[in-house]
């Protein structure tokens, strides 16, 4: 009888261990992992321009995408009058990119092409200077009006950048494509400036 009792005890303990191992080591905790994924494609975007309040000198303002100079020349000397304006664009580029500033005419040129050569002593185009700030970029484009052509500057930006593109346009008093303070021929003058944020 004591022998039978001993066998019984061994069986019970053995059975308990047999269950204990898988039950407590493997199955008291169950875990599932589910990944959550997505992507952010490379994006550059530029918003509409707006005038920096109080920044304009001798500009009527911004109408759509057009900046209108108020008084282009000094009425007594006919030399170009000083003018400046500060325009901002909300912009974002979420990857390394390039900022490109382009003047279509390389200065303010008559909107109507002249068939006659410019009169001696008069200016026939107006140079200006554009400065741009965008992230780490502080760039300048000098539209010197010496020739009617596309003039552009490119700036590589190594970092994703978000914020404002700050563009300042400045016409110096008396500036001319011929000589300082030359009187300007009558006419309408214009240029188109383009700003690109684009892949490099």
């Amino acid at each position: 009888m004591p022998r039978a009792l001993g066998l019984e005890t061994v069986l019970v303990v053995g059975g308990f261990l047999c269950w204990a191992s898988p039950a407590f080591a493997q199955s008291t905790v169950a875990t599932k992992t589910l990944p959550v994924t997505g992507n952010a494609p490379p994006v550059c975007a530029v918003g509409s321009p707006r005038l920096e309040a109080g920044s304009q000198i001798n500009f009527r303002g911004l109408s759509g995408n057009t900046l209108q100079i108020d008084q282009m020349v000094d009425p007594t000397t006919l030399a170009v009058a000083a003018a400046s304006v500060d325009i901002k664009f909300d912009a974002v580029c979420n990857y390394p990119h390039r900022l490109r500033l382009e003047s279509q005419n390389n200065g303010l040129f008559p909107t109507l092409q002249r068939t006659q050569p410019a009169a001696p002593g008069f200016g026939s185009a107006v140079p200006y200077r554009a400065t741009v700030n965008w992230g780490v970029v502080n760039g300048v484009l000098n539209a010197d009006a010496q020739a009617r052509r596309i003039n552009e500057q490119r700036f590589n930006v190594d970092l994703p950048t978000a914020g404002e593109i700050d563009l300042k346009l400045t016409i110096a008093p008396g500036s001319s494509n011929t000589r300082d303070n030359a009187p300007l021929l009558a006419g309408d003058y214009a240029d188109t400036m383009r700003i690109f944020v684009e892949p490099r």
Partner: protein
Amino acid sequence: MSRNLKRLAGLSAAAIAIAWSGTAAAQEGGGGSDTDTKNFAVVGNVPAMCVGGTLAGTGATFDMGVLIDVNTGLLRNDLAAPPKILSGSFCSARSTITVAATPMAAQTFTATPPAGFSRTVNYTATAAGWTETPASYVTGAGSNPAAVQTRGTAFSGDITVSVGSFSTGGGATQRLVADTNYQGNVTVTLAVAS
């Protein structure tokens, strides 16, 4: 009626007697003459255990696709994905369900992002169906008291895992850096409660 019962009892007793006598005869044929009896206890237990279920339908991944509004670079405000169903989960005892999650993070762009940008997306992961109050975890939160929920009884059933309430790490004005792979993980754990 009473006589029939007696007869049944008599037949039953006779049957037992025949069985034992057959055993005795066999032992005699093998040379032994004693009878012996041993008692073996047949015991068992049902261990407390939990088993996670299997996923029905599509795979285990919550694929959120394009995370940003391509016109602004900001996080989309309409991000959504169908929930995942863990079918056939069970715990044979009192249990806890725990949800943990890691933010979706850019896997290629691992440097500190420049000003105005973020490389993480936070979200809320929820596991419902197991407890009255779903277990939920908000990535990026300082604490997540609702992440662990306890059920007092054994249970078998489906667990619905969902993700939602996405937000950009660092604030809603931050843009996400471009990256082809943002990834985080939701982990659901069933455990026997002590």
